[in-house]
């Protein structure tokens, strides 16, 4: 087992750039999730690590070994394909044993020569892994006779049995229905904790990414935007794309303008006015707020805006409220403007559509982005809301 290092990897297909200058260092035994929308180049990155695709420029290291010129079989990497790619003509047992049968290991008596694994050795490994994954009873079945969840386990078993340097998993859970999926997620996490092997896991599902990854590598249009722990990507996104891509429900964005007002600056969006500091000049700015950082109260307290509930999405343990926020209570807006829409996550069944509410938020939690989506680290809310 080893870590994996990508050094300035770029992959171009004819005209389009699928992977754009990606550098990523994955530690030995780490579980890294590559998260991105469809077509962002996740699969291509995995295939380059596996050697199924050759990068246009850049280098791949497995452990300390530069493997650019290595065939897939010489990289000793296991991969679970999105489609599982089980051999349809072989039983589950043979699917798992297949790689072991072609494998050669050094001979005990003469290390310069090699030999195939014996039948007993192969059988022992296959049964061991099958037991671990709970598929020992279905080893004689063909892939077509297995359920989606069972196929996924066979594909995992086929990867584990080879004891590879690292595991590459391309959306292995996306073909499962929601219920088995969350189970499979937990099992996969346990498996990693048990094997302590390097895992590179590709998904477009941010919940999956959050629960599984030691670190998330967020890609968009072939670029690596950020690689950080799940907590850091949530609390310190480097740009607006990452901020909107991780976290569920999605972050609320207020696109407004910063105006200079008598010595200071104020963020203005419709009837909402928020004093801010840290900017050099007026201009377009977006404030991002997590829905769970937005407080909704029935009574007015200092620093809240008055609003109305326009919709409720019942998520089970909590509700997502859709709110229209108007001016702060008491203040009379000089120009009546369209209300601002927000979303907030609150305890289930506390509010209903049409309720008049008061909305506040912790000024320290607000994130600022410029018009290009870059994070404005220096900006913050300067004083409590009026």
């Amino acid at each position, binding site marked *: 087992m080893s870590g994996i290092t990508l050094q300035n990897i770029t992959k171009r297909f004819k005209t389009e750039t699928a992977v754009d200058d990606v550098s990523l260092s994955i530690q030995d035994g780490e579980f890294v999730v590559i998260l991105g929308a469809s077509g962002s180049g996740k699969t291509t990155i995995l295939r380059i690590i596996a050697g199924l695709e050759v990068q246009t420029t850049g280098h791949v290291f497995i452990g300390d070994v530069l493997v650019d010129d290595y065939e897939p*079989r010489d990289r000793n990497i296991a991969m679970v*394909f999105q489609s599982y790619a089980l051999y*349809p003509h072989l039983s589950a047992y043979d699917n798992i044993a297949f790689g072991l049968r072609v494998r050669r290991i050094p001979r005990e008596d003469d290390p310069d020569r090699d030999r195939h694994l014996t039948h007993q050795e192969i059988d022992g490994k296959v049964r061991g892994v099958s037991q671990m994954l709970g598929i020992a009873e279905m080893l004689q079945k063909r892939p077509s006779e297995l359920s989606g969840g069972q196929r996924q386990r066979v594909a995992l078993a086929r990867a584990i049995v080879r004891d590879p340097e690292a595991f590459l998993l391309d959306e292995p859970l996306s073909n499962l229905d929601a219920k088995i999926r969350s189970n499979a997620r937990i099992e996969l996490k346990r498996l990693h904790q048990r094997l302590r092997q390097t895992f590179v896991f590709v998904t477009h599902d941010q919940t999956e990414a959050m629960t599984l990854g030691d670190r998330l590598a967020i890609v968009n249009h072939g670029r690596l935007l950020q690689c950080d722990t799940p907590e850091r990507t949530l609390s310190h996104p480097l740009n607006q794309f990452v901020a909107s891509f991780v976290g569920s429900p999605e972050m609320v964005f207020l696109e407004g303008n910063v105006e200079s007002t008598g010595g200071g600056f104020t963020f203005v969006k419709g009837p909402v006015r928020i004093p801010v500091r840290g900017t050099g000049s007026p201009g377009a700015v977006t404030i991002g707020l997590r829905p769970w950082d937005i407080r909704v109260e029935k009574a007015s307290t200092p620093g809240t805006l008055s609003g109305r509930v326009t919709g409720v999405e019942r998520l089970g343990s909590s509700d997502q409220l859709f709110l229209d926020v108007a001016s702060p209570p008491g203040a009379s807006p000089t120009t009546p403007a369209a209300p601002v829409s927000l979303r907030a996550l609150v305890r289930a069944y506390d509010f209903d559509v049409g309720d008049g509410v008061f909305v506040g938020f912790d000024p320290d939690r607000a994130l600022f982005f410029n018009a290009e989506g870059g994070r404005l680290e220096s900006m913050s809310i300067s004083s409590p809301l009026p």
Partner: protein
Amino acid sequence: MKPRRRRRWTRWAKRIASHVVLIIACIFAVFPIYFIVVTSLSTLPIAGITAHVLLPNPSQLTLSSYNTVLLHESPSYLSLLENSLIFSGSAAAIGLLLAAFTGFALSKFNFPGRRTFVYFILLISLFPSVVMIIPFYLMFAKLGLIDSYIGLIIPYSAGAVVFSGILVKNYMDSIPDDIEEAALIDGMSRTEAFFRVMIPLCLPVLGLAAFLAFMGPYTDYAYAHVFLTSSDKWTLALGLYNINSSDTGTQNYGLVTSFAIVMSLPIVAFYMVFQRYIIGGLTLGAVRG
């Protein structure tokens, strides 16, 4: 009460109609075979055969034609059969191996001019093979390959490659790339992946291709007639023609039909052995295994 009876009626009508159609189709399919079998068991001249076929007279049934065909013809049936099996077997084996490689390359490798090559092969297969006899003959005459085994095996195999190559390509197109890639990841070279994964997956289409590659040379008359001059290399098809046009003047239908029957027996045997794969290959489009 009434509607139900009417429904039952229409069901019956449908059943009867479909049976009538099937029986007629069956007669069309089976009658020629019946005709040949009964004719082969008689020694009657052509004039008497029709009546005999419609109402066979058991006392006139005899195996004497078979006796003549199998034991008293020259060249002997066994020699003809041996030659046919050599030609058809070699063409099927060589053609199949090459077709498997061709199909694999055309389906799974990316090389410049691949599409052009596919269209080129399709174009070739549109020509009836007979039009190529003359060029082949001239070419092989120069090479001294006329009247030799190898000289006929080459065009037979080439024909099989053209046809079966496309067949195999189309089948391999339906096998997802990631199955082969899984084999590469599992530690195989591309060659190993080809023989250990792709070939086993393609068995249905390879069975069909083998059958067709075998049938072509087995029933070919045109090439064999032009290329083979000495009778010790004759195939069954030439033998059949020889009996048909023997210089006794009157054609002996008993001999011809009994020859046709013993000639078709190896094909029937071949079919029965590979039936599972051939039927799989023929129904590829409908159900993918």
